[in-house]
């Protein structure tokens, strides 16, 4: 009697364990799916893999953010010949707001350019200029320029716009 009771008890336990395991698997899948759906999945590659080729043109300029004020910091500039960095208003042919000292051919970093007061939302073109005062262009006759919106990206829309 004792033996058969023990076997019966064991069978019940086995069934219970099987049921619980299956339930646990279901719960795991459910929790996993729930977790996945709440996380946006980017179709872009990871940031570290988003790399770019170097431009072929030997004249290069890199500027990150430009804050309101009277200084533009050029992170890095490479010049094939001696020249200047010029900050222009609105477009590459606009009024000059500031100009670097004469830079020798080669690579320079952290170049600070004093400018007229730049206000939040101003649009500036940071261009390269030859020693003779000509815009430096590439083989396609496009000027080497970086366009920047000063300060915050731009005025955000008022709710009445919607």
């Amino acid at each position: 009697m004792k033996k058969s009771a023990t076997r019966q008890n064991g069978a019940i336990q086995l069934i219970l364990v099987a049921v619980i395991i299956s339930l646990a698997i279901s719960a795991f899948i459910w929790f996993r799916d729930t977790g996945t759906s709440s996380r946006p999945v980017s179709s872009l590659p990871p940031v570290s893999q988003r790399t770019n080729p170097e431009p072929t043109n030997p004249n290069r300029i890199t500027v990150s953010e430009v804050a309101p004020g009277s200084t533009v910091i050029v992170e890095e500039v490479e010049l094939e010949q001696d020249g200047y960095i010029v900050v222009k208003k609105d477009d590459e042919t606009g009024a000059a707001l500031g100009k670097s000292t004469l830079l020798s051919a080669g690579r320079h970093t952290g170049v600070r350019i004093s400018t007229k007061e730049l206000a939040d939302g101003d649009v500036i073109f940071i261009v390269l200029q030859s020693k003779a005062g000509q815009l430096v262009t590439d083989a396609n006759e496009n000027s080497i320029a970086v366009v920047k919106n000063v300060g915050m990206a731009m005025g955000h829309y008022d709710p009445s716009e919607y």
Partner: protein
Amino acid sequence: MTFLVKNDNTVFYFLFIGFMHRRKSARRKTSRRSTFNHLVHIRYIIIGGVILAALAILANTNYFRGNSHNLAQATTNTTFTLSSDNTFVNEDDTNFQTSGDRWLGNGQSRDKSYLGLLVSGETIPQGAHIEKAELKFTQPNTEWIGIAIKIKAEDSSVPENYSSSSRPSSRNLLSVNNSYSDNVKWEAGQTYSYDVTSVVQEYVNKYDANKISLLIKGTGGSWSRKYIYKGSEKPRLEIQYTVQNGSNPSTQPSTNPLVSPSATPSLTPTATPKPSVTPSPTPNASVSPTPMASVMTTPPTGGSGAIFGVVGIDTLGTCSAQVHDKYVTTGPDGKLYRTWHPVKDPSGCTFAHEHGDDPATSTIFAGTVPFGYVAAQLDPPMDEPHVGFKCFVHNKGQKNDEGSAMLHDTYFCFHMGTGGPARFTARFHSLDFHMTSASGYKLNVQGMADIGNVGTICNNPRQRRTVQGFGCLLDSPYEIWEDVLQIRNKGSVVASAIVSTAVFDPITSMDPADLSRTVYTWSDEAQQKIFKFNDPRNNYRGCNREAYSGPVNWYNRGASQTYYTDPYGNVVDGGVLKQEISAINTSQNTGYVNQFSGLTMTYKGSEIMTQFKYHKSACVSGLGIKN
């Protein structure tokens, strides 16, 4: 019930304890306490199993998903009607009318014309959520005249019947109003509706409602009115609302962002049949709708599960926010964005805004365009008004009204609305541009396009963003922007996509002295300070457009076809926008090349054109003044 919270580990705790007891008991086979241990572990296992079973059931019923509370809701539809003559009146300055024909809009008086509607029905408990409230008119005669109105509710728990000593103009009003301006034909026997959801919601937030006094003030010119009753069917208010069961409605403030009592939406006409939008054949009213703050359908958060970008309910027309929220797509960042949709939803409702051509009609359609994605990548993210996204499809072989045929395939969606003044100061607008040349070269780029400075056509030099503005007398209201998106790698242009977008019927005009002012094109002020001709313009909805594809240039010979940039098109490692640019130069022999000035897009006779122009109106009835 805390164990029902998502990701709660209590279930696993019970299972773990159960199994630990089981393992311990196995090690203690000889123990005199084994029977007790069996009982303990079976108990824990059973508890764990029961919880898991409950979880599985709840999961299947979507119990957790999308609900922050577990209160059931009952939806009720009800209709409030007019009971007597004294509940349905017109007021026109000193005149007060409780019988005969009734009208909507303005009588002789421009500032004291009212339609008063005191409607009654079953009691809607205070705090109920108004899903939808529509004021419906069954038209006695076919009429076609522009009207402008503002609808508010009276601030009274028991509004009295109107009388000559208690006129609509004398009533105290709540703050929310719905404003409409339209110039469409209403057909005899058809029913037309105005959405008054937020007005009714404000009332129900404050009072139990079995009587609501709606005051509809004419805000247009003298005699800009429609007769809405000539002894036949009276207006009615149809309401759909929900009351949370298990809660005391009177203590539940509305949590629906649609119906914030502090907001004052400006709504658009919602004619349900199909009146056509063409100039009114009847005397025209010069209507000057008042711009008002909109109520948002979605908080501007974006992110997981939420749709990026807010949408004013005054742009939704006869559709609900839920219907509009169907039109979403996943952006490259994995978040949800709104996207193109037809003006008329298959359910039958009509939106009060349009997005132009369906990008899916492009022969090179590369996937749904996520509206607002580019500006969302700015830091901080910017939310460009949804209604401004306009799409243009130019397929190869498509002929324009000059008989010129497009040589390549392009489609693009650009942000250009004319319903507000922000465009006079916002210099960068998002552009999502796709092109495949006849030779198979690709240019799929996106970014904040530079549209230059603003000015009128009278400005010298002319600016890239030419609008109509005070001080420049014109025959034409034409507004055109040149939208330039250049991908630059450390200053060198890799590719350049330029499009021009134009409207023949801008909704607003510019006051150069105050660029933040909203000046409607049909306003008296605009008529006096801009237009030589005094023709009616109150049907302008910014929907009659033309666009130019090009000039387009590649400067990418032999280089990578993929770049990552910031939102302005500057190539940066780790950039948030992916650009696809074929590794060619337009100065190569690519088939149709006009060196340096851009790829040849079409021929006008024998003349090489680097732009392909295409005029197409997207105007339909029901469009609002934010489009």
